[in-house]
């Protein structure tokens, strides 16, 4: 019998994180993200790493639905965009400080996600996947005609709002570190869930939802919870990201290609693994950067993503981590 590419995941080992090497591996990654651009004050590096933090945040939260519970969320970008909108609106129209606006954005989006989730998570497989696109499109259409949020023209933030952070230049650094923090939380969250009872239930749902229900896993509640939890950090990331851009409009905020790329990253790295997301993001960024510099390929970003996804699904369903685990099984003791 052909060995499973991802082997048996290491579940249900309890949330005793500090004693596990992987906890410190994540910490090291975070440290690198913080230190690398600081060293030599490299703004260009910071900007490309910032994009990486967004990808990693989106992909690792997406993984909770996709890699753990087996539910494809095509429209996960809606959390990011909505978080951005709530934050920008609260700051520009209601003069809220950044911290409060961001936090409220995160909480509001999670609550909405839970409510919507209960409804659309009754749908199985492809129906659910398509309805997530529907949720994104519906929100996009709504926001495009919602005048208090700027309609299709969008909202602007005045540069005065950067003053509390010490002025525009310093604000960019602060935002970067906050986004690194959000990324770090995303990695720890997906790790923590994976080894917890909740994660065990999600994986059971992903393997065989009917059997899981018979075994006592509260499938409805867990799915909605996963959907809601997977919305929180992307909403925070969206809030921070669009604050930094000082401008938000529906076509950027709810751009499906971003969540598509997050999905490709999660699959490329290895669905259901935490390391895979970071690895996938790195590889994807590198590949994209290399291909986009060549004239012929610059229009074909999604073609690249699509080809990658196809190759992975056909030949390497366990992603890069799956391949690594097959060659060096002992890695599974250390990495998740």
């Amino acid at each position, binding site marked *: 019998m052909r060995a499973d590419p991802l082997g048996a995941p290491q579940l*249900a080992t309890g949330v005793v994180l500090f004693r596990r090497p992987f906890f410190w591996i994540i910490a090291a990654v975070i440290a690198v993200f913080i230190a690398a651009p600081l060293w030599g004050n490299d703004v260009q590096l910071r900007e490309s790493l910032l994009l990486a933090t967004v990808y990693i945040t989106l992909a690792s939260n997406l993984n909770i639905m996709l890699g753990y519970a087996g539910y494809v969320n095509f429209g996960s970008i809606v959390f990011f965009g909505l978080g951005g909108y709530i934050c920008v609106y609260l700051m520009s129209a209601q003069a809220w400080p950044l911290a409060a606006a961001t936090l409220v954005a995160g909480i509001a989006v999670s609550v909405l996600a839970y409510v919507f989730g209960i409804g659309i998570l009754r749908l199985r497989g492809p129906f659910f996947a398509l309805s997530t696109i529907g949720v994104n499109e519906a929100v996009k259409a709504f926001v495009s005609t919602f005048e208090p949020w700027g309609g299709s023209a969008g909202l602007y933030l005045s540069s005065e709002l950067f003053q509390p952070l010490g002025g525009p230049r310093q604000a960019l650094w602060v935002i970067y570190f906050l986004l690194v923090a959000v990324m770090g939380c995303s990695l720890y969250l997906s790790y923590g869930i994976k080894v917890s009872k909740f994660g065990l*239930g999600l994986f059971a749902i992903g393997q065989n939802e009917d059997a899981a229900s018979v075994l*006592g896993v509260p499938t*409805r509640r867990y799915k909605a919870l996963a959907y809601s939890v997977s919305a929180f950090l992307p909403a925070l990331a969206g809030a921070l990201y669009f604050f930094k851009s000082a401008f938000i409009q529906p076509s950027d905020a709810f751009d499906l290609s971003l969540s598509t790329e997050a999905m490709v990253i999660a699959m490329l790295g290895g669905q259901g693994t935490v390391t895979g997301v970071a690895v996938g993001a790195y590889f994807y960024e590198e590949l994209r950067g290399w291909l986009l510099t060549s004239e012929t390929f610059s229009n074909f970003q999604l073609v690249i993503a699509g080809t990658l996804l196809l190759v992975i699904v056909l030949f390497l369903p366990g992603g890069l981590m799956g391949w690594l685990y097959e060659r060096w099984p002992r890695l599974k003791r250390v990495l998740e």
Partner: protein
Amino acid sequence: MTALLDVQGISKSFGGVRAVHGLSFAVGAGEILGVIGPNGAGKSTLFNLINGVFAPDEGRVVFRGSDITGEIPYRVARAGMARTHQIVQPLERMTVLENCTVGACFGRENLGLSRAREAAREAAVFVGLGDRLDLPAAQLTIAGKKRLELARALSARPMLLLLDEVLAGLNPTEVEHMIGIIRRIREGGVTIIMIEHLMQAIMSLSDRIVVLNSGQKLTEGAPADVARDPAVIEAYLGDPALAAKLHAGA
């Protein structure tokens, strides 16, 4: 004797086909109740109706004194009922231990992770999978998967265990082994309802037998009586080999 499980007049139709009709019986605590009947008699449907996979069109299911009719499967599991499937449903990419831990975590006692792992380990060792705890379920043999199905159900420490053809597809040695396990499960205080085609096994294991035919209860009683009942033999005459075994197994 207050029944642990009381099935009262349940019926279920699927698009005009009556799968189960007016079925009633009770199971006392500590019993092993055997359910037999020709193919298509509605046995697996019965289990599905009891544990919540389908809601009956009519009738009630009362478990441990509470009405669980039409309750969702995971709430039934939480109430203390566990079940194995005729076609095994292992959680393929999870290990044996992880499979059982799911059962232990989400079963009656709703255990926390570390205690669940212990319970899971005990159950897995009990059925003889102690040497394969870290093996992905997909890599087990059929016999192994059947044992896993059982271990997983046991990990939940249920009060009532529904076994759906747990002996099917096993060779004689494996059948012997399973029968021993089932006896020991009952000795541990678990009530069992088992569907089985292996006549000798079910006749020797069961305290009482319920016979189904075309979705209705034909008769119930002690194994010896049921085996001699002409109506039962006639129902099986559609399957002469089985009828012969019925006769021989009494």
